[in-house]
């Protein structure tokens, strides 16, 4: 029997159709995966079911009754719960307080919640300290709180939006086991992901979305993974190569270097030397705790780690956006620790920052203006801006880096995420001098085509003798691109692996703090 039935759902944002005529049934007690690339409409679909957005056309029924939630409150009332990609917990409140939030009773009854938490701990193995503050918990623990919050009210349907993106490998296994437990108790689970590896381990059925449409819904028993990949990306996985396989994390497939890649050019002299780097945040908490690292010319070094172990801070410090508390950073013989971004750029460092929208570009300005943001003086004649010269230079750069926009004068905001990122890469890789590139989460939120382009650019830069530091939360990305992977844990490097000896298990173990054996 179907718990949730969608028919003809359509959702538009302005001129953009995010979902187009979606019809789908979710059965009782099944784990149903929604598979699709970024922008395929997975999150929009979840938000419609949870009442965050309202459909422009189509109907939904829940347990046979019409279901048109006007907001999350109404969805919750009907037994639909959701764990969002970005957690919705209040950081400076305790676990118990977060769990009591929005539950009917005039006076708070913390004891009731604690009893219920004990029940859930016994039933699903979801244990957590009710007194702990959310801001002190790890990402995996926070997600556990989210799931407990969802299960408190004994829901019919649990929706998980990209729940594994932030977890380390053993936490992913635990989460998938919980999904099965929930389904075994007669509830239904919608699991959103773009990782095929997870799907084949837990799903009963999978629906593939592409560009807002349902491509197919298949039972996972005996399903052909390759044909799922084809439906998802709309082309053959073989032709796209290992990058694509890595991007979607196909089970059992160890990423290999694409043929034609000469492999690491033998790394030359050190271009980046970090020694004993310490960084304390404004609250005095050490985020980097004596980190030392060397990157040679012609080498891509990947930094693996669960989010929140200091990699973001490392990126900020290298970009000059935060000053280290102690330690030294030397680029090509120049000390740049605590220098301004301008001084760091002058030392020959290109930066692809983690937060593209906030730091890497000014969305309201044109593509040309963004491309020459740091080199405005270059097109100045007697103090006046020579726009036509800049326009020509921008056009050339856009051609070189395949930045697709109707003209260099359109605003950066009108470009897709992939083209924005290519523009950022174009700017940073065109710096002169340039000896080192920092790429922090360079493919976050990009589609498969753009991911490939970014990888190829980074590899080409390496082959030209640049030292590259790649910070990424995607293990597959690191394994596919890096010549060497260093693992960061609680602000320190805990181990290193050279190309050829990469394994998910070994890196996963180090990411959770077990030193490399």
């Amino acid at each position, binding site marked *: 029997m179907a718990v949730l039935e969608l028919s003809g759902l359509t959702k538009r944002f302005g001129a953009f159709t995010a979902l187009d005529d979606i019809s789908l049934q979710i059965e009782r007690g099944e784990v149903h995966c929604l598979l699709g690339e970024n922008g395929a409409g997975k*999150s*929009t679909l979840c*938000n419609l079911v949870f009442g*965050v*957005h309202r459909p422009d056309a189509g109907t939904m029924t829940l347990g046979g009754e019409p279901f048109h939630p006007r*907001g*999350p*409150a109404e969805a*919750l*009332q009907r037994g639909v719960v*959701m764990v*969002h990609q970005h*957690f*919705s*917990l*209040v*950081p*400076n*409140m305790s676990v118990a*307080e*977060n769990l*009591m*939030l*929005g*539950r*009917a*009773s*005039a*006076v*708070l009854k913390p004891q009731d919640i604690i009893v219920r938490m004990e029940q859930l701990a016994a039933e699903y193995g979801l244990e957590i300290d009710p007194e702990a503050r959310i801001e002190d918990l790890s990402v995996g623990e926070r997600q556990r709180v989210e799931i407990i*919050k969802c299960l408190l009210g004994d829901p019919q349907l649990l929706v998980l939006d990209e729940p594994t993106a932030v977890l380390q490998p053993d936490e992913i296994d635990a989460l998938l086991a919980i999904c099965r437990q929930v389904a075994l108790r007669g509830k239904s689970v919608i699991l959103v992901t773009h990782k095929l590896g997870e799907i084949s381990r837990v799903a009963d059925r999978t629906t593939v979305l592409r560009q807002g449409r349902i491509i197919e819904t298949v039972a996972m028993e005996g399903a052909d993974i390759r044909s799922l990949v084809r439906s998802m990306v709309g082309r053959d996985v073989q032709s796209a190569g290992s990058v694509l396989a890595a991007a979607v994390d196909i089970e059992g497939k160890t990423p290999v270097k694409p043929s034609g890649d000469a492999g690491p050019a033998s790394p030359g002299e050190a271009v980046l030397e970090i020694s004993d780097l310490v960084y304390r945040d404004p609250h005095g908490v050490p985020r980097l705790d004596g980190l030392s690292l060397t990157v040679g010319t012609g080498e891509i070094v990947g930094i693996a780690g669960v989010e929140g172990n200091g990699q973001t801070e490392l990126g900020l410090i290298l970009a000059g956006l935060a000053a280290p508390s102690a330690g030294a950073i030397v680029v090509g013989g120049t000390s740049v620790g605590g220098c301004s971004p301008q001084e760091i750029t002058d030392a020959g460092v290109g930066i692809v920052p983690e937060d593209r929208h906030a730091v890497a570009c000014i969305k309201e300005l044109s593509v040309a203006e963004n491309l020459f943001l740091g080199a405005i003086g270059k097109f100045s004649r007697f103090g006046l801006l020579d726009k036509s010269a800049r326009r020509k230079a921008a056009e050339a750069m856009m051609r070189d880096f395949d930045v697709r926009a109707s003209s260099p004068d359109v605003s950066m905001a009108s470009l897709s995420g992939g083209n924005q990122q290519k523009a950022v890469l174009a700017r940073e890789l065109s710096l002169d001098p340039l000896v080192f590139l920092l790429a922090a989460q360079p493919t976050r939120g990009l589609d498969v085509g753009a991911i490939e382009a970014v990888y190829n650019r980074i590899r080409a830069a390496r082959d030209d003798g640049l030292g590259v530091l790649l910070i990424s939360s995607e293990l597959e990305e690191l394994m596919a691109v890096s010549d060497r992977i260093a693992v960061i844990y609680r602000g320190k490097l805990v181990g290193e692996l050279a190309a050829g000896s990469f394994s998910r298990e070994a890196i996963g173990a180090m990411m959770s703090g077990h030193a490399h054996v």
Partner: protein
Amino acid sequence: MIDEQMAVFIGSGLRLAVPIIFAATGEMLSERAGVLNLSLDGMMLMSAFTAALASWATGSPLIGVAAGVLVATALAAVQAVLSVTLRANQLVVGIGFNILALGSTTFLYREIFGPLSRDPIPGFAQLNLPWLAHIPVIGPALANQTGLAYVSILMVVVTWLILKYTSFGLAVRAVGEDPRAADKAGISVAKTRYLGVLYAGILAGLGGAFMSVADSNTFTENMTKGAGYLAITAVIFGGWNPWYTLAACLLFGFATALQFLVPALQLDVPVALLLLLPYLLALVAIAGFVGKSRQPSALTIPFERGG
């Protein structure tokens, strides 16, 4: 002699702190929900005027207080519509209200009572609580206050209980800290913020009415003299905690009362400097405490539901 002057000083310090305690306590709750009411001073002034007018017209100070609270709450409701529903800039709205309140009360006062009128207005008598009077030094000052003064302390306790022990209080804290999370937990951000602003309005109304009906038994132009701003400062100074906010209000009250004590002790300090003192303290408090104590993360940021 000295003892007597101390008693007067403490008594007037408390009396002067009461309107600030009312306003700051309500404002604290509203700010915990994420809405800053810069219009607090305007709400108090409107209430002070309305309370005086109603008390004068009916002869009942109680009706005066009720009328004052009603007007301040109505003002708060408009503030809520503008800053919660229409997502207007809270600072601009607040400043607009204060100018409107000052202009309209001054105009109406001159029209109704005539310029520079000092007509006494029916007010509350002071209670005399013998069991309090026995406490040494501060006893007589504590015992001889109007009923509303005790209500102000009661409101601090009530507000503390609401924030700590009720689900409405939890919702207020969540909405001021992370409205998106609260929304997804099924809480109505708008409703919670409306209630927060109305609560601030009711308490600001009590504070304003206290000034005209319980304290001075008259209305004068701009009689709040920035008490609403002092209340907002007290909330910051008090780190959004009801007890520390109360302490900050008392500090401001006593600082204001020094202008009576110092001349009585025949100390040679310019009165103008003493008049300035509470505001100077407020400035120091803001400069020293803003940024150090953590304000509600979503304070002054309108909420809009999104993906």
